[in-house]
């Protein structure tokens, strides 16, 4: 539809860009085209909406598509573009995970307990998107309250991996990752509490950034585990992720954990020059359980970094093996108190009961099984008599993890390793095996416990044609360093250029 309208338009340029399928453009390419007047936001938005109609019945990446709103925003963006405005994401259609509150648009966190909840406010970063001129395509699927690594705990439906529809896209931000990989959004927000941006990025052959805790505001992002949650960005290239990150990072006085530190020019930092960059390879990230093909691809990527001039050295993060239990104690404890508010008293569905208490108990039955399990685990970990043994001990352990990273970053600029021990697994394969699912996060969790930042960048495929990601971890607020390292690697390789053929 969008294509035809554009072809009947007056400009020959429209014909040019439409002939090459707008959905294949990267965000930065689209931005250049919009700025150059070669394409309109309405046409680009329609191309995305058409693509969603065409393939999302199979991928199932969106919970809500805001098509009318998107076209309205796109038309407004076109007026501003025509008037000469050039805000960073003006007219660029993007998606956000359904953990982000969006004014006037249903926000469910993938849970029945928030079914039909329409927030009267935007998350801070959603406001930043609007300020930058972005067009909101819709809300993407998520594991319920971001609790999962496969997007299968969503109360609505599971999302499928565009590379193999029988497989998971990863999680919990699987909807956003699948949407970007499936060319149904130019970029998207996810949240990363234990790897929920990096892992699906690696499963879907896209770039996923998890910035330093406090770099992006959590205001208006539905909380899972407050001390670990952080907004993350998906894009098909490092430059795309950087553009979205650049436009939305920064201090927010309404988030007391937000860092009041100026936002550097990340886009200018993408020089591609990593000569002399000290890259540490933690021996604890190459252990039993790591898939051989994944290891091969990641080691090859690290060699590639060396070829580009990086100085590679082995390092140790000795407490990495404790990260999993520490993470699950802290995350579930915080979740148990964060989710206690969903009682149907003030918003969201309310199940009738004999009295207030009965009604609240019946309403809470709307939580899914995984969420209930984590609430119970966390409640237990905080109970009198158990606090010191569990939550208190986990906080102490967290300090050890932080010290590991501090020591490592005294000698290296970047830590490189795998994102996930395996490539994408099959839907249903691990749905009843929490421990196996937890193990999928062992290389991503430590970062969330520390004050570091990290990303996943495409670095190869296994024998089944499933994507593999390289994880690059940087010191506190050193996003520019890891983005540039990833950029240098991306420029030297072609993994990111491969596109999935959906349903093919």
């Amino acid at each position, binding site marked *: 539809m969008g294509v035809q309208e554009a072809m009947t338009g007056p400009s020959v340029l429209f014909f040019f860009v439409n002939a090459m399928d707008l959905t294949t453009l990267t965000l930065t390419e689209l931005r250049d085209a919009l700025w150059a007047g070669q394409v309109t936001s309405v046409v680009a938005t329609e191309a995305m909406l058409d693509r969603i109609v065409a393939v999302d019945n199979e991928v199932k990446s969106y919970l809500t598509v805001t098509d009318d709103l998107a076209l309205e925003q796109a038309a407004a963006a076109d007026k501003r573009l025509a008037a000469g405005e050039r805000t960073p994401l003006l007219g660029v259609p993007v998606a956000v995970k359904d953990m982000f509150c969006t004014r006037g648009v249903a926000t469910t966190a993938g849970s029945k307990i928030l079914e039909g909840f329409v927030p009267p406010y935007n998350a801070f970063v959603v406001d930043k998107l609007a300020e930058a001129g972005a067009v909101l395509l819709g809300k993407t699927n998520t594991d319920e309250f971001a609790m999962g690594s496969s997007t299968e705990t969503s109360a609505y439906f599971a999302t499928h991996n565009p590379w193999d529809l029988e497989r998971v896209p990863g999680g919990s931000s699987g909807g956003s990752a699948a949407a970007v990989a499936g060319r149904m959004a130019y970029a998207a927000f996810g949240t990363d509490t234990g790897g929920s941006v990096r892992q699906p990025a690696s499963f879907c052959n896209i770039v996923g950034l998890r910035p330093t805790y406090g770099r992006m505001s959590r205001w208006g992002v539905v909380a899972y585990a407050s001390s670990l949650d952080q907004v993350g960005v998906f894009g098909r290239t490092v430059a795309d992720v950087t553009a979205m990150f650049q436009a939305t990072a920064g201090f927010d006085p309404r988030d007391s954990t937000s860092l009041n530190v100026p936002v550097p020019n990340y886009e200018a930092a993408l020089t591609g020059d990593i000569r002399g960059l000290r890259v540490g390879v933690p021996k604890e990230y190459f252990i039993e359980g790591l898939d051989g093909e994944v290891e091969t691809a990641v080691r090859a990527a690290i060699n590639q970094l060396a070829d580009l001039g990086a100085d590679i050295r082995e390092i140790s993060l000795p407490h990495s093996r404790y990260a999993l239990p520490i993470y699950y104690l802290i995350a579930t404890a915080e979740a148990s108190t964060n989710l206690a508010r969903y009682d149907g008293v003030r918003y969201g569905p309310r199940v009738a009961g004999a009295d207030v208490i009965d009604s609240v108990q019946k309403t809470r039955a709307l939580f899914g099984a995984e969420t209930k399990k984590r609430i119970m685990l966390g409640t237990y970990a*905080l109970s009198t008599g158990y606090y010191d043994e569990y939550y208190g001990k986990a906080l102490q352990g967290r300090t050890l993890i932080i010290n590991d990273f501090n020591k490592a970053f005294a000698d290296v600029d970047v830590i490189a390793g795998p994102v996930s021990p395996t490539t994408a697994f099959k839907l249903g394969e691990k749905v009843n095996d929490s421990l196996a699912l937890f193990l999928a996060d062992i290389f991503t969790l430590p970062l969330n416990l520390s004050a570091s930042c990290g990303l996943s960048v495409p670095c190869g495929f296994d024998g089944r044609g499933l994507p593999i990601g390289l994880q690059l971890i940087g010191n506190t607020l050193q996003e520019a360093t890891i983005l540039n390292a990833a950029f240098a690697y991306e420029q030297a390789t072609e993994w990111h250029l491969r596109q999935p053929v959906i349903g093919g």
Partner: protein
Amino acid sequence: MSKYEAVIGLEIHAELMTNSKMFCGCRVVDSVEAPPNTAVCPVCLGMPGMLPVVNAQAVEYALRVALALNCTINLHNVFARKNYFYPDLPKSYQISQYERPLGIKGWLDIELENGETKRIGIRRVHMEEDTGKLTHLDGGGSLVDYNRSSVPLLEIVSEPDIRSGEEARAYATRIRQILRYLGVNSGDMEKGVFRVEPNISIRPVGTAAFGTRTELKNLNSFRVLADGTDYELVRQAAVLDAGRQVVQETRGWHEGRRETFSQRIKEEAEDYRYLPDPDLPPLHLDATWVEEVRAALPELPQAKLARYRADFGLSAYDAAVLTEDRTVAEWFETAVSIPPHLNPKTIANWVINELFRLMNESKQSIDDIRVSPAGLVELIGLVEKQTINNNTGKEVLAEMFASGQSGTAVVEAKGLAQISDEAALAATIKQILADNAAMVERYMNGEAKLRGFFMGQVMQATQGKANPKLVNQLLGQALNQAEK
């Protein structure tokens, strides 16, 4: 009770009179007057993704109290989540302080009825947020008002040093007075802005272990605090004497029956699953700032009272009455400081006997009245210069109070200036004696008390304006002459 010793600790909750709430920008409104749910926002309603930001003014107010109660200040403050479910608590946890409260190890001296002073330990002073208010409807159903949700709240926990209802009352009264002096709380118990909850137990005299305690809630006056506490001590003694066990429970006060009654039995200690609030980094107070706040504290009531006695020579009673309220004390001190620096005792008498009576009659506070300290000083000057007599002075004050005019203006407008003209008064007296010859005769025959009658006649003839001293003198002379 004689074989038992009372062990009482008080938990006091005081809302802080800040402009906005503890963790959001909503106004703090009168939760009794304001229409329900008109001062709320997504933060104090606990909506998804909302985050708290600490109110700096609330921290300063809380710090004032902790300092005034002689606490050791924790510069490293941690906010904690206290988890429990109730529909008036939007997040299902209250942000409070647990392991690192603002103030610890404080104390307060209270005065007992026998004149002795007793020191009550203060275990902790910490910051938290108030809850909303639930109203249960008679026909079933409940209404909830979140105006009060997240209003800054201070919790002051005493050591179990209190031994009677009277001590509990003295302690709570003093705390409330200090909070008012510090300008952080109105002290209104009816509206629940200031709430006192005693934990009460008894133990055999000479033993150290604590007995099972009960907690009294919803006490809306100091009298009820004292009576309820005393009732509970007697009740617990009777329970133990009967060989039974005190049950750990929350009890209320039934005003009609004047007894406590069981509200809720705590079968086991509630598990609040405290954890440091991950949404709020630890709050570090600057030591210099703490000292600035300490230096800016007003003179507290006990220090003020001591100074009034020492410097002004006031009685203990007068000093206590004048220092009860900081605004009254400041009004009084302004009057004392104004030239010609009248005797503070004289000013105190006028304030306590006359001004307070007028304020009580008209139900006005010191902030409302139209008489200024300078106005009172001027009026007392008129009396001391004998421009008007004492009784006229009281009438003039009443007029000043009613109209806002100055004393001089009232005296002039109403022609109230004392008649001190000897010749005129002598003529009046002569006329009165002539008109009452029979009475003069009886006086001559020994009815000395009739002298008062002649005084009255003179004052009546001069509409009370005659200088009474002069009248007395001239009357004496005239009666002497009549005798001759």
